[in-house]
């Protein structure tokens, strides 16, 4: 007993550790290192990126000669204050689309956690066999770089002179700008009631706008209160229109007697710059089979736009807003460089869409 006990305890400890090792994927990680299949090679590389082991991930690329390491790293960590600079690769799904003895195509769906919420990125990657292992060919961006140039800027800007540094922003002795909700539509979705429409700044000064809605029951009691949150362009220049969407999760339309809408506006300093053009807009089905509105954003100014936010309003044949969708673009908008975007919309809505209108909201990350 006296000499057996420590051995028994040590043995039990080892057995428990081995069991946990299996349970927590230690063995799987070990197998992954061999990169013996296209899927394993992709998983290995992405798991290394997930743990910020970029050197190891880069070392596993088949096309290192064509791709600079920093460029590869920036594919995941972003640049110019883009959304990817405030993100982390949280997970990924990998599936082989087709494979031969020497080459395979693998679809990787990357799930990022970002500063504005989750972001998914789908990449179809070529994986090549090199001896006993497989290596990923990371796509090389062949977009031509712009030469140095001068971009003349000619835009409107509104400044506001406040009462003093001790004043609260928003507690000003001026009238609020005139804004008006020009349309409102309440629709039932499978898991929620959605209130959507458009709001216009009718004033001659910029306005900072928030739209809120309160659902009222049969006895005018408040059922729920929500705001447009990030599904609106809060800064509206004179005469500018923004779509808005307010979601009420777990709510049924038949329980609602009325909706109380409220648009609050505040005078702010604003600028028409940067001007972002939206080109090649089209409704299509993407490679995952989803209905999307896609297009390209081009920053026509000389400043970098760090985080663009696309908001799209969809109209039926009567010109009524039937859906509003939005999405954040992972890349920063460099001057004059087109960047693709796509925002999805429900298939049942897509079939009723006659026209659409896209606006771009943006945020400049200062650090």
């Amino acid at each position, binding site marked *: 007993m006296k000499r057996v006990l*420590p051995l028994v305890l040590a043995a039990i*400890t080892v057995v*428990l550790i081995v069991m946990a090792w299996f349970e927590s994927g230690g063995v799987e990680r070990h197998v992954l290192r061999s990169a013996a299949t296209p899927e394993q090679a992709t998983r290995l590389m992405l798991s290394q990126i997930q743990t910020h082991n970029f050197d190891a991930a880069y070392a596993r690329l088949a096309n290192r000669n064509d791709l600079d390491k920093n460029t590869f790293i920036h594919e995941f960590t972003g640049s110019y204050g883009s959304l990817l600079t405030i993100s982390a690769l949280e997970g990924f799904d990998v599936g082989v689309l087709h494979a031969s003895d020497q080459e395979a195509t693998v679809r990787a769906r990357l799930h990022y956690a970002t500063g504005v919420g989750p972001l998914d990125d789908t990449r179809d990657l070529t994986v090549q066999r090199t001896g006993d292992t497989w290596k990923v060919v990371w796509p090389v961006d062949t977009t031509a770089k712009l030469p140095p140039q001068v971009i003349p800027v000619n835009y409107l800007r509104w400044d506001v002179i406040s009462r003093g540094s001790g004043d609260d922003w928003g507690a000003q002795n001026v009238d609020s700008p005139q804004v008006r909700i020009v349309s409102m539509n309440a629709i039932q979705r499978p898991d929620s009631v959605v209130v959507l429409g458009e709001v216009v700044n009718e004033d001659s000064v910029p306005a900072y706008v928030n739209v809120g809605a309160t659902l009222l029951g049969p006895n005018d009691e408040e059922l729920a209160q*929500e705001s447009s949150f990030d599904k609106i362009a809060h800064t509206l220049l004179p005469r500018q229109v923004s779509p808005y969407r307010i979601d009420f999760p777990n709510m049924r339309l038949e329980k609602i007697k009325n909706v109380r809408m409220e648009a609050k506006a505040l005078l702010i300093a604003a600028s028409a710059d940067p001007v972002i053009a939206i080109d090649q807009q089209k409704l299509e089905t993407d490679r995952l089979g989803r209905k999307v509105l896609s297009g390209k954003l081009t920053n026509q100014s000389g400043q970098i736009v760090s985080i663009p936010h696309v908001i799209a309003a969809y109209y039926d044949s009567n010109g009524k807003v039937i859906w509003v969708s939005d999405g954040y673009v992972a890349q920063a908008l460099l001057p004059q460089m087109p960047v693709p975007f796509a925002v999805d919309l429900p298939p049942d809505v897509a079939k009723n869409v006659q026209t659409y209108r896209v606006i771009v909201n943006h945020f400049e*990350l200062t650090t």
Partner: protein
Amino acid sequence: MLMGREDTTVHTSYFSRPIPLRLILLLALAVHGPLLAMQLPLTNSYDANFHVFFASHYAHHWFDPWNPKWFAGFSQTTYPPLAHQWIALLSYVFGLHMAYLLVQLAGVLLIPVGVYRFAQLWVSERAASYASLFSVFVGAMVFLVYFAGQLPTTLSAPLYLLALPYFYDWSRTSDFRGLLKGVVLVLAAGAVHHVTLIFGSLLFAIPVLWLAVIDRGEERNAVAVLIRAGIFAGLAAAGLGIVLLPYWIQIIRHPIEQMPIPHASRSNLLLNFTYLTNYFFVPYGMLIVAFPFMAWYAAARRRLRPLLLGFWLTLIFGLGGTTPLPKWVLGRSFEILTFERFTLWAALMVMPLVGVLAERAIDRYGRKAVMGFATAALITLLLPMGWMAVTPFSPNANINVDAVDAFLSRDGHDKYRYLTLGFGNALPKVSTYTDANSVDGEYNSARLLPEFTHYGTAQLTSAKYFGTNGMEALRMMLRHASHYGLKYIFIRDPYYEPLISFAGWRKVESYDSGTITVWSKEDVPPARPIPSDAMPTALEGLLWGTLPLASSILAILLALLIPDRARARTEVLLPFPEREMQGALVREVR
């Protein structure tokens, strides 16, 4: 020179006598006093500010445990109050920070006393004194005091250690004084920390009960020992049921059903070297080297086997998800607990074995062994101190939040609720010194708002570290800003600025050269109370404000007024030196 028999020389060296407890306490004061005087826990730890925040509430509202400052209102009866109430009490004289440090000092000084008393059950007086001495240097203690800021864990553990000898005495010899003092100490310890009460007390008590059965002697029945232990446990349970009644009411009414929040101590430490360092190498230090020797030694001695098994089990629990055992035993509780405290318990539990190992080594190797153990103790102490400087886990507890409190205190800004983002563990610092209320908070078990409980995230101020879950919880809270009167957001990490901006807040002020920015949303109405069925009744408030503190005062009075009976253990007999049959060769003095 003696020949043919063991050494029976009466030693007079310092190394062969027990070290007086007074000296050990002085050493503990010399080691930890300056570290506490530097306010390390308050500036460098995760939880110290949290405990100060709780204490601050008691200082202002002793009999009202409903605290509106976090989570739009929560009940402090979800956390045993004794440590916080002592801080609150002392704060009337010393201020909150000094009071915190004094209570923590009490915990730090009680550790060697508790270990000494606990070790006396298992090993000789001298080995017990060594155990007590080494407990001053335990890395897990340093880690929990100065890095984790777990005041209640580090205060309740020695109280349990002090209670265990009484539990042993009562169970073995029906010593009524043991029953009385032991139960009162358990009440005080339970009133300090619930997790130690529910999990730690069992891990410590079962080996001691086993020892009491072994030591009962031929004249006593093992069943009687067990029955007496049951009586002790029953009385302690009944007492804790009363002393912590509001806590039990709260737990029964609102069991913790929120989504599990990830914690590194629950992961498989072998898959991440940083976690392994943080939760194994740093807290145990040089103890790791001694584990095999202690196991070998203890397994060979019947009386030490319960201690060895108790230590092994606690060690396994302290490894979190490195083995499946904690998950099997704890079930859903595994997802709620953090496991660094098990490491402290394991380290304290093994101290008697360290003491006896040191005793034998010093007997055999003299000064060399002393030097070796001293070096090992120093390394064990310094390892966590060094780790604090290089660890990638940074509590951010030392942020200057004066500007935030000043903003909230002026122009009626405290009519609205606020949120901090990127403030890490400085959030309680903000909350302590402002009248404004926040929707966020740092105590996960007290949260009842669906914006928190539906997502696996801890405090919103650190939302980004919880990935999509954290950011979704934050989005949900921001969406309900009007409902909660959430108007002001303080940002200390530009990571959060895009979301706040797109969601309709505007930057209004900045402090510390733009390090902290204030954002405001103009259409938010003033905050109104959020109805909650978790609000304690006035009677619960009265019980909460009196019984826990009373239990500690009673424990102190009993310790001072009723002396302990000397413990007699039949097994430890010193052999009287036999008469020398063979003449010793003595050189004549010239």
